[in-house]
């Protein structure tokens, strides 16, 4: 039977709890009066005293890994914050759109690794631009919907009026009102009184279907 493979030294470090990893990275990077030696040798010795056996090569690899890892975690937090803001500003976005913006933002932030100032400028401009574009798109969609709605209402109104005219044209009562000697205003008032008595009457007559 093959002996079980020991996990690699750097895998041990990568699988330590987050705060422990942070502590190791701090020891490798921050000199203090209590900890003046940040060399890989010193940190390896410190870890060994704490029961964690590793090599200097593994520590080198861990250092590179942690640098990237911490950066990506920070980028993820920033991205999630931006997405929350975006969702509040533009509530109509689908989950797919939000995930897409999130992915773009996260990938973009990975590019800023070497230049903090440029990243901040790029991130702000990009996020703002994306937000404005999304808002404009939604505004356009809403306007198009309203315009179509108005168009349909107008069409419906015209049809109803024409239908009414045809019905009234045949109606004796309507002809009497139209042919009378009363003024135009009076004729309109009489027509309205005759054919639009009350909303309930109108609805019960079945002549007109009132909107809900």
């Amino acid at each position: 039977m093959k002996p079980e493979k020991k996990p690699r030294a750097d895998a041990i470090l990568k699988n330590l709890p987050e705060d422990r990893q942070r502590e190791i990275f701090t020891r490798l990077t921050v000199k203090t009066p209590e900890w003046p030696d940040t060399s890989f040798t010193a940190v390896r010795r410190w870890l060994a005293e704490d029961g964690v056996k590793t090599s200097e090569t593994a520590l080198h690899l861990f250092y590179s890994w942690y640098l990237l890892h911490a950066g990506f975690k920070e980028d993820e937090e920033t991205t999630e914050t931006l997405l929350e803001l975006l969702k509040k500003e533009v509530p109509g976005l689908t989950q797919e759109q939000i995930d897409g913006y999130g992915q773009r933002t996260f990938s973009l932030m990975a590019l800023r690794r070497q230049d903090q100032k440029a990243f901040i400028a790029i991130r702000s401009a990009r996020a703002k631009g994306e937000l404005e574009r999304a808002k404009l798109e939604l505004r356009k969609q809403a306007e198009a919907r309203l315009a179509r709605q108005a168009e349909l209402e107008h069409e419906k109104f015209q049809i109803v009026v024409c239908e009414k005219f045809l019905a009234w044209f045949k109606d004796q009562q309507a002809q009497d009102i139209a042919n009378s000697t009363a003024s135009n205003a009076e004729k309109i008032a009489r027509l309205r009184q005759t054919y639009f008595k009350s909303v309930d009457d109108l609805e019960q007559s079945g002549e007109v279907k009132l909107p809900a």
Partner: protein
Amino acid sequence: MKAETRELFDLALLRVLDANRTRFGLGLTALGHCLLPFGFSPANCGVKETFEELVADRVEYLVRKGMVEEVQKTMERDVRAWRITNEGIRYVDERG
């Protein structure tokens, strides 16, 4: 690119992906950029295709090997992103 260099390139790609344990993947441009600390850049790769094409080619290879997977299938080219699989993590851990 020599086979040995290609292997190191693939390992560097996996290391970068291994460091990203977030819910987002990494796009090709971001991946290429993060290879710099590992000694790989457009200037020193000495390949005929563009650096991004090289990264794309190797990522596809690693996907075929089951070590990398695409985060979300999408038609939009600039949203495509990848992350490491458990198989990929195992590969990195075994090679250091």
